[in-house]
């Protein structure tokens, strides 16, 4: 991290603001995915504020660590953090999904410097991240690569092709994170397609596996530390999260997977978040 390190309570405050930003963004856009943005925000904010080497004023700095948001629909969370860190003016968040905006409904490297991959078609990000991690190894660089996936997303077969392959290359610079919020658009993830025992599956694929509470900043930070200390294996962090975390009426409610809050709902959510 090239910025000065925030105290944890300062990060908590930042994340509270990011949740507000997400709600306001989605309300203004009139569409988007609040559930999976709110479940992932603690993970994404921790990555940018504590874990990754990057330069907000130089997004294409060659030495940067790479973050691939494979669950592209969660991008409002990433935009909120990027704006908060100075990648672009916070005012630009108001342009989410507008016709001439750089802030597309799914992340694309074509529009906004600092986005590494175009994602949104689920299941592809881990393969791409693996390629980045392999490149760093070949080039003798110390870069680390982080890939955040949704739990519904890992129903895609391509995820398991990459899961099978990364250990072959001993990519200990690769960290895959699953935002295990237990919901997808068609219902509870494990009812649509049971993923369990999920840790066992990744262990069997020869990943170093860590399960955490994905809203606990200490546990998130410790997991990233443990990944750094792990040699010869990629790390999988299974982050147990709550869909819609932080807004009481959205928490665990599948209908908030892909619906923007209306004016009343927005006011109610902001009231809760602003406390």
């Amino acid at each position: 991290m090239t910025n000065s390190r925030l105290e944890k309570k300062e990060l908590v405050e930042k994340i509270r603001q990011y949740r507000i930003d997400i709600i306001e963004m989605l309300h203004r856009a009139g569409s988007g995915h609040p559930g999976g943005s709110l479940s992932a925000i603690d993970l994404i904010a921790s990555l940018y504020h504590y874990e990754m080497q990057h330069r907000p004023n130089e997004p294409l700095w060659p030495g940067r660590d790479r973050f691939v948001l494979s669950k592209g629909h969660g991008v409002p969370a990433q935009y909120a953090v990027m704006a908060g860190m100075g990648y672009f003016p916070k005012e630009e968040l108001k342009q989410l999904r507008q016709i001439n905006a750089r802030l597309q409904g799914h992340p694309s490297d074509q529009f906004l410097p600092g986005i590494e991959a175009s994602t949104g078609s689920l299941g592809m990000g881990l393969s791409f991240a693996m390629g980045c991690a392999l490149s760093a190894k070949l080039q003798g660089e110390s870069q680390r690569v982080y890939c955040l996936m949704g739990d519904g997303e890992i129903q895609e077969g391509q995820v398991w092709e990459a899961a099978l392959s990364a250990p072959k290359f001993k990519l200990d610079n690769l960290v895959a994170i699953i935002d295990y919020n237990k919901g997808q658009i068609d219902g509870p993830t494990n009812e649509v397609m049971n993923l369990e025992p999920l840790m066992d599956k990744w262990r069997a694929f020869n990943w170093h596996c860590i399960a955490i509470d994905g809203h606990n900043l200490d546990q998130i930070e410790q997991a990233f530390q443990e990944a750094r200390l792990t040699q010869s294996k990629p790390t999988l962090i299974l982050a147990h999260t709550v869909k819609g975390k932080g807004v009481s009426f959205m928490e665990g409610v599948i209908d908030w997977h892909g619906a923007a809050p209306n004016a009343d709902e927005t006011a109610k959510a902001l009231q809760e978040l602003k406390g």
Partner: protein
Amino acid sequence: MRKRALDTVFALAQQDERVVYIGSDVGQGTLQGFQESIPERFFVEAISEAYVIGMAAGMAMTGFVPYVNTIATFLTRRCLDQIAVDLCIGNHPVRLVANGGGLVYAPLGPTHEAIEDIALMRCLPNMTVLVPCDAEEMERAVRASLDWSGPIYIRIARGGESVVSLPERGFFIGKAIEVRQGEKLLIATTGVMLQTALEVQDIMARAGYNLGIVHFHTVKPLDTAWLANQLGPYSHVASLEEHSVIGGLGSALAEWLCENGDHKLKRFGIPDRFADRFGNQAKLLSYFGLDAASIAKELQAWVKPS
């Protein structure tokens, strides 16, 4: 042609540290030298084409130029979304070196026959589509691909075809090669159907025709400058390709001629159906009317000699 393509990739890799080879389930015997001398940039990946495309994209965006080699149908049909999202949106310099373009794998049936690969690749923004006609031209194509900025699909045909390309004509991506100027009737072809077009020309010459032949080794971007400037002597254009009549060179020409020309167009290609015969490539091509004698007969019924 495949061996020449891969040998050229190896030669490029020896000169340029950006070049990476990724093969999937095609047998890497021809590249033993590559594997032994540059093992760190030689990857034999699993039977997992979708993941290989993503891996290649990740490597391309971090400075490498990956050449991915596997069977054409598995690249184009199975990985269409990965190619669109991972390669084309980001315009990453990945080269898809596709074995068995057309009916090469006739004995294996429709699962392995790439009859719509050009169509699938041609409709993707940022994709370039190269279909060389022989081993010599394949080498020139692969060399030309090294510094091209976006993704490229390179279609490999059967092996052992006669060499008809001429080194002095060079190879410039996006530039058609006029093989023979004629009048009234022009055959526009791509890939190894150029050899068939030359056979057709022999037959037609004996019947009093002065057939023109143009070779589009690059189907996309189509050389519209050539079309705009060189179609003057012709009233009839016949496209000829080892590909479905939907979406390939014939379609590309139809699109251009509809808006820019008043030429009659006839498309020779594989009809819009999966192969219902096996045998071998030559027999299947004849079955679909794509042998020189059948083509010449049909052309003679279509156009009178000039």
